[in-house]
């Protein structure tokens, strides 16, 4: 256990080792470690961002879906209303048409009746004239007249 020059030699060795480590060992490894740390941090933040984006996209998709549903419902509603309207209006039209047809038929019937009556009247006149002629030619007999008149009336 003698103290001797080994002491100095050991100090020098220590100094050289520290110098070498500072110069050639420490920098590349710490640089790589820091680069990896940064890479990992970047990756993690990117993942965070991506999940946030995903959430936003899901939210947006849900909103769009809701909107589309509402639109579809509105369209169906509108279509139903329109269909009901069309049915209503066509019913209305049909009714009007029917009424019009009935009216027309009535008018035609009326007209025909008037015509028939006119024709009848003319016929009655001729018949009356013919009857009168026959009466005038033959003897005026009440009994015969009445018989004739009855015939006349029957002819109406």
């Amino acid at each position, binding site marked *: *256990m*003698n*103290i*001797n*020059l*080994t*002491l*100095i*030699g*050991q*100090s020098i*060795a*220590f*100094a050289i*080792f*520290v110098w*070498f*480590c*500072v110069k*050639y*060992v*420490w920098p*590349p*490894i*710490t*640089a*790589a*470690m820091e*680069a*990896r740390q940064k*890479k990992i941090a970047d990756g993690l933040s990117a993942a965070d961002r991506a999940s946030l984006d995903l959430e936003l996209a899901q939210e947006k998709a849900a909103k769009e879906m809701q909107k589309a549903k509402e639109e579809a419902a509105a369209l169906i509603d509108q279509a139903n209303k329109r269909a009901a309207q069309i049915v209503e209006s066509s019913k209305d039209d049909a009714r009007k048409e029917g009424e019009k047809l009935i009216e027309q038929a009535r008018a035609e019937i009326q007209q025909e009746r008037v015509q028939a009556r006119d024709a009848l009247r003319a016929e009655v006149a001729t018949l009356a004239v013919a009857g009168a002629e026959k009466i005038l030619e033959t003897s005026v007999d009440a009994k015969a007249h009445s018989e004739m008149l009855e015939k006349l009336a029957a002819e109406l």
Partner: protein
Amino acid sequence: MAADTPVAYIQHHLTNLTYGKLPAGYERADGTVLQEAQWTMAHTAQEAADMGFMAFHVDTLGWSIAMGLLFLGLFRFAAKRVTEGAPGGLQNFVEIMFEFSQGIVRDVFHGRNPIIAPMALTLFVWIFLMNALDLVPVDYIPVLAHAMGLEYFKIVPTTDPNATFGIALGVFILILFYSFKVKGPGGFLKELSFTPFNHWSLVPFNLVLELLGLIIKPISLALRLFGNMYAGEVIFILIALLPLWVQWTLSVPWAIFHILVITLQAFIFTTLTVVYLSAAHEDH
């Protein structure tokens, strides 16, 4: 092996392989007398002690430098093949060590200095590797060295106070350097003179206290590491003296416990170094 008695065995295992300068007229262990001063390998513990300061512990220096090169080589290899993508096994291990030392620095160092974290890494891994040599069975390397003609061989550098004091000396120089650099000579002197008692009449007292505190820092660092590792080594050697059939009942638990000790000591040395340097960076 020169280990006939337990005492001789223990002493043998605790003596470093020393290469140093013996003075002229010195009588070697084998009886020869040196005509002039000579650099040579010590053959006995007494010779190693007589070499005084002009000597090297070849085993301590060799193993500590080998461990340092192992650390730097491995980490430099990993640094060259480093990738930003998924790391492989080696890179993973290296990054764990990096984050460990960065964690120590982040927790206790409040200044800004790009040297501190790599220095903490170097200290921790280097000291850990040197301490880990303690787990090599105590007789393997000495017997191998003996076969190669080397009388002594102690492989754990941190059981040699020269190694721990050498590193602590480096740390001490860094403490002084940064104290002067950050606080300025005036500021440093002021801190030494006016803490803990801020009054002019107590300046001498403060100076003595603070200078002692300053010098104690590296000494405590070095002695703590040395003491722990030395004690662990001695216990391994003592266990090795027991009969063969009973050794494992003690050496296995002690080795398992020692895994904790070698890690903990490396950690404590590193953390305290960072703490001291942090204090050196604090500008009042």
